[in-house]
């Protein structure tokens, strides 16, 4: 009985004193925070200071492109210039952090532009307002007046990198298929543009149907499929000279869906012989080929992992289009997609941790991402027709083509953050499809 009473008393004491003992502390107060907010980070970009006569307009334009780049990511929100309390009139003057703190700007980008003798110099600094310190060190870029947009993109890349800790993607280009004319007589030609749709330049004339351009990792060459000879054949184009040539192959055999290996020396593509389509690899220098798949089914859309050791591709060997991963040298493939619907056009992320794909299910097309083992599949978009994802050089954004329904339907380019936020259209002069994002320049 005594023991029972003692046990009861001990339990009661523990129940009462336990929480108090837990709350008591000997060292610092320890708190764990597991819930935050997901929202754009407010920042300010006042007009850059014009340090030479005639640089005023350029200073404003560069500041606007920097702001457009940052705000366009969806990760940042610009505090309107009308709300600014302080004005930066000199690049070297101290920053009044209290004024920027008052308008809740967490980061501040200050800059100056000078233009002398056909040479433009842009310099900038990034400030952590609440810490009252500079993020990184000041930097400057110089170039011709024609290249002011690239300089602005480079400034934005630096700002992005210093705040997020990751490389940017603003100073990059996208090769795509420009489309014009009615749907049944649509002219398609290769074009290249800045990541934001500016500076569109055409690479082919439009006499022959072209498909699926793919940048090399250095951005100097483009692989694409052309019907110039009547049958689809893989071509390689030098971006600098706009000269293209057909990759060697057998006459009368269709080759398509090419993509560079990370080293740029090897190309993987599909060849159709009869009713069978397989994946092949070709050494560009020697022209030597190697068959990587041999199943009696359609294997196509190969894409290398960033380290070049594996290839993800689509195959209907199981009855429906699914995604598979195999060694880069060929061999046994393992299926990674497992959901409902048909999967196609897989692309390995530059980070190496995810694969983007097109999915068709229940009459809708989606752009989605999954881990390289097929887990954590997440659909980011949904529409009448979404297809052909391509990764930004930092693996953070996916660009793809979206076509609208109907006889007057047109294709255009969209981008979306891998979190599924910030879905937006990329403005192009004409219709656009088949984007391929090049490297950071």
């Amino acid at each position, binding site marked *: 009985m005594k023991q029972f009473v003692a046990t009861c008393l001990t339990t009661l004491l523990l129940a009462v004193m336990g929480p108090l003992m837990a709350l008591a502390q000997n060292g610092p107060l320890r708190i764990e925070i597991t819930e*935050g907010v997901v929202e754009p980070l407010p920042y300010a970009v006042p007009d850059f200071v014009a340090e030479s006569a005639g640089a005023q307009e350029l200073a404003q334009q560069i500041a606007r492109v920097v702001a457009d780049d940052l705000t366009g990511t969806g990760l940042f929100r610009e505090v309107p210039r009308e709300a600014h309390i302080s004005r930066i009139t000199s690049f070297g003057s101290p920053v009044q952090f209290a004024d920027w703190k008052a308008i809740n700007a967490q980061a501040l980008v200050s800059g100056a532009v000078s233009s002398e003798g056909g040479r433009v110099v842009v310099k900038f600094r990034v400030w952590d307002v609440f810490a009252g310190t500079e993020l990184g060190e000041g930097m400057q870029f110089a170039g011709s007046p024609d290249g002011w947009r690239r300089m602005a993109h480079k400034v934005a890349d630096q700002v992005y990198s210093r705040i997020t800790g*990751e490389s940017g993607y603003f100073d990059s280009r996208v090769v795509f298929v420009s489309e014009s004319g009615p749907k049944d007589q649509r002219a398609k030609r290769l074009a290249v543009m800045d990541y934001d749709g500016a500076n569109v330049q055409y690479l082919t004339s439009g006499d022959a149907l072209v498909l699926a351009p793919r940048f090399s990792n250095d951005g100097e060459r483009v692989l694409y499929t052309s019907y110039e000879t009547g049958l689809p054949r893989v071509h390689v184009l030098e971006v600098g000279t706009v000269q293209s040539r057909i990759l060697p192959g057998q006459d009368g055999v269709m080759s398509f869906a090419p993509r560079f290996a990370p080293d740029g020396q090897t190309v993987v593509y599909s060849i159709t012989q009869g009713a069978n389509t397989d994946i092949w690899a070709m050494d560009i220098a020697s022209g030597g080929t190697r068959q990587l798949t041999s199943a009696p089914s359609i294997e196509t859309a190969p894409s290398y992992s960033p380290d070049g050791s594996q290839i993800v591709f689509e195959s209907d060997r199981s009855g429906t289009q699914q995604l598979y991963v195999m060694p880069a040298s060929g061999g046994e493939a393992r299926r990674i997609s497992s959901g409902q619907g048909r999967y196609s056009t897989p692309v390995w992320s530059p980070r190496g941790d995810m694969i983007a794909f097109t999915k068709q299910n229940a009459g809708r097309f989606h752009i989605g991402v999954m881990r390289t083992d097929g887990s954590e599949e997440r659909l980011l978009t*949904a529409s009448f027709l979404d297809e052909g994802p391509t990764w930004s050089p930092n693996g953070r954004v996916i660009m793809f083509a979206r076509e609208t329904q109907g006889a007057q339907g047109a294709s255009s380019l969209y981008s979306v953050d891998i979190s599924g936020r910030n879905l937006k259209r990329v403005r192009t002069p004409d219709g656009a499809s088949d984007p391929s994002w090049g490297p950071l320049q």
Partner: protein
Amino acid sequence: MHTGHYISGGAHGVLILWALFGGIFGSDPPDVEVAEVSVVSEAEFTAMMAPQPDTSAAEEPAAMTPPEDEEAAPETPAQEEAPTAPPEPDVAEPDPAPQPAVPEPAPETTEDLAPPPAPAPEVEAPDVAQRPVPRPAPRVAPEAVPDPAPEADVAPEVQETVEESDTAETSDAEEQQATAPEAATTEIITEAEEPARAPTASVRPQTRPNRPAPATEPRETEQTETAPEPAAQEDVEEDTASAIAGALEEALAEPAESPTEGPPLTRSETDGFRIAVQDCWVVDVGSQAANVTVTVAFDMDRSGQVVASTLRMSSASGGDASATETAFQAARRAILRCQGDGYTLPPEKFDQWKSVEMTFNPESMRIR
């Protein structure tokens, strides 16, 4: 030596006693059917057996009377017998007797009948309730926030519109614009997950027409009733301020070398501190920094403000140097940005919170 025997003997004894007195050999009595009965007197029985007039049947002849303009309307035997010999109501299905050549009752008789109860509408409801799908919003936060009113500015605090008034009874509040927090959802909603568009707000029900006002209450009454409130409020505020000042004085009067032991922070005090910081912790869920758990250490002064120079990363895990630095910067911004004029912490427990280690763990944020 004989312990086994004793145990065996005792056990057998218990078994024998249980067999004798435990009813093991007794059999259950046979089942008997029991029916409830009630006693009825002879008079009651006679009354029950006597024929009862059927009131429902008595009303029927009127309904079955053919209209006057109809002539060759044969009368059915049932119609004749109904008034005198009420038949036992036949609840069974009536025989499909030949239809009497009687015209159908006049339509007006059916008007008085209550309509048959309408069948319950079939509702196609799923067996399992679907989880409500959050609506997309530009901000993702631990607590969902509805869209603010269109006329309201976005601000952390909710406040009503205060406009200038000509009346002398206007309160002391300054003119202000209505504000409301920015709309937020609890998770990222992609286009593929976005629910179908539906109205987010319903029309406010219209108020009833105003009844004639009884008698206008004298305005002085309101003034006399409301006038004392500010004074009382001022008293309360003064008391609160004096109490806070007193507590601060006491806290400040403590010698610097006072022992660190003291009353611990309560759960609500700790939660208040945590929530204040987490509202400013911006997590970039798609970045490598979202894989990093970082612990930040810092000191605070008695006003609840962070001593910025003491902010330092005490530990981190889950990412490379760049991602770790980014995670630390985000945590530091959260701590500094939301402190305002100082975090609300009890001054008398300063020793408990003058040094803080705050761990920022974004694990639960990654899949949003």
